């Protein structure tokens, strides 16, 4: 495990990662003669099959991902949902698990409304969404912030430790989409604080002892704000 971690290194497009007959090209690499060449910026990894793990860039839809999106257009049989990334996604009327008046589907969700949905197919230039699963549906109220989708795992933490910490400390409801859209709902102060915390996590995603930093950030804020406010009131 530790050996593998050491092998990871940042590569840039056109760089020769390794050279030799023993290696095979994986994701985002190509083989030219004996050389395995990187095709994008990221972390190179692998013993035999060399692949690149992206560390930046826009969201690429994958089947089974839970995403948060905003309705950008309405068609006669569904909604076009903006989920970040190269293409919009389509949510069909058939994929809504409740009755919707076909003559006025804007009644259920209008342009600008938010959905938490699951991707069930990825096509060449769009993705299809569904609401037929637990925890999916329209999101009412709250606010949405956007972070880099490659930093989502850090925001969630090991078995949701980080996100649960933020939820508990700020008394908010948080829903993290795998596309980097994060929906937060709570009282104004809580929402504000949760947003700041998530931004901190995204900014310091690669640093050590992140959980302690977040704990300190959340704890410190509570103690700091209260006395100041009390002084002002006096």
């Amino acid at each position: 495990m530790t050996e593998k971690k050491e092998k990871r290194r940042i590569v840039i497009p056109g760089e020769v990662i390794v050279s030799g007959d023993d290696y095979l090209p994986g994701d985002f690499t190509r083989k030219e003669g004996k050389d395995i060449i990187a095709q994008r910026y990221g972390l190179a990894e692998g013993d035999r099959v060399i692949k690149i793990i992206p560390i930046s860039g826009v969201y690429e839809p994958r089947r089974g991902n839970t995403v948060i999106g905003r309705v950008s257009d309405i068609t006669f049989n569904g909604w076009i949902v903006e989920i970040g990334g190269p293409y919009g996604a389509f949510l069909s009327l058939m994929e809504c698990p409740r009755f919707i008046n076909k003559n006025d589907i804007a009644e259920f969700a209008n342009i600008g409304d938010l959905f938490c949905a699951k991707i069930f197919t990825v096509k060449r230039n769009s993705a299809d969404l569904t609401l037929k699963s637990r925890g999916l549906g329209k999101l009412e109220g709250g606010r949405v912030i956007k972070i880099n989708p490659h930093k989502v795992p850090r925001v969630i933490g090991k078995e949701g430790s980080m996100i649960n910490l933020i939820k508990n400390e700020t008394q908010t409801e948080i829903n993290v989409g795998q596309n980097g859209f994060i929906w937060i709902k709570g009282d104004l102060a809580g929402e504000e604080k949760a947003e700041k915390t998530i931004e901190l996590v995204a900014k310091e995603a690669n640093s050590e002892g992140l959980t302690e930093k977040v704990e300190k950030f959340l704890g410190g804020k509570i103690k700091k704000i209260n006395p100041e406010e009390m002084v002002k009131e006096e």
Partner: protein
Amino acid sequence: MSYTKRLDGRKADELRPIKAEVGIIPNADGSALFAFGETVAIAAVYGPKPLHPQHMQDPERGIIRCVYNMLPFSVTERARPGPSRRSKEISMITENALSGVVELKRFPGTVIDVEIMILQANASTRCAGINAAAMALAHAGIVMKEMVSSVSIGKIDDKIVTDITKAEEDYEEGEGATDIPFTISSNTHAITHLQLDGKIQTERLKEAYDAALKASKKILDYQTRALKGEKIDENK
């Protein structure tokens, strides 16, 4: 008197102090700064994202949309803001210089926006812009075959020099000044952009290409180091 010694005391094949950094614009998907001495360019990349208006979409491949912009305070006399004949031309050649190495077929019907701003100008702004844009594209996780590096080669009087300044561009003695910006790809050493402003003999052009190739390898090294997290500033 012929041009034997360069005006700023550099060697014929020496670059100005380089400055290079990535991730300078947090809201962009990828961004970079690149500077040749007093010529400073920043670039931001957004996308790939859906392209509107729809009639501009290409169902076979994505497109790159470049905007080169020289900021009003970048030159000694205020540059009029907004697009000009010159900036439109440079936007176009930047697009062409980059689209050769980007895998545009991966995302048909989309656009990659590349914004280049010149913060400070002292000749070779298009080269600094292309270098910054190439770094920003890589930083944005765009799939690319290889990198590109750009450098301007000059023939001042009868001497081939690398990375010319404004003062050299205005040299009038002898044969005068010729400015040849080259953009060369990192692995195949293909020329993705070549311009020529002035006069040059055929044999000398080959000489200029050799100088450009040598300089582009040096520039690639700076770009690589910056992308790997280093903040390069040789101005100190």
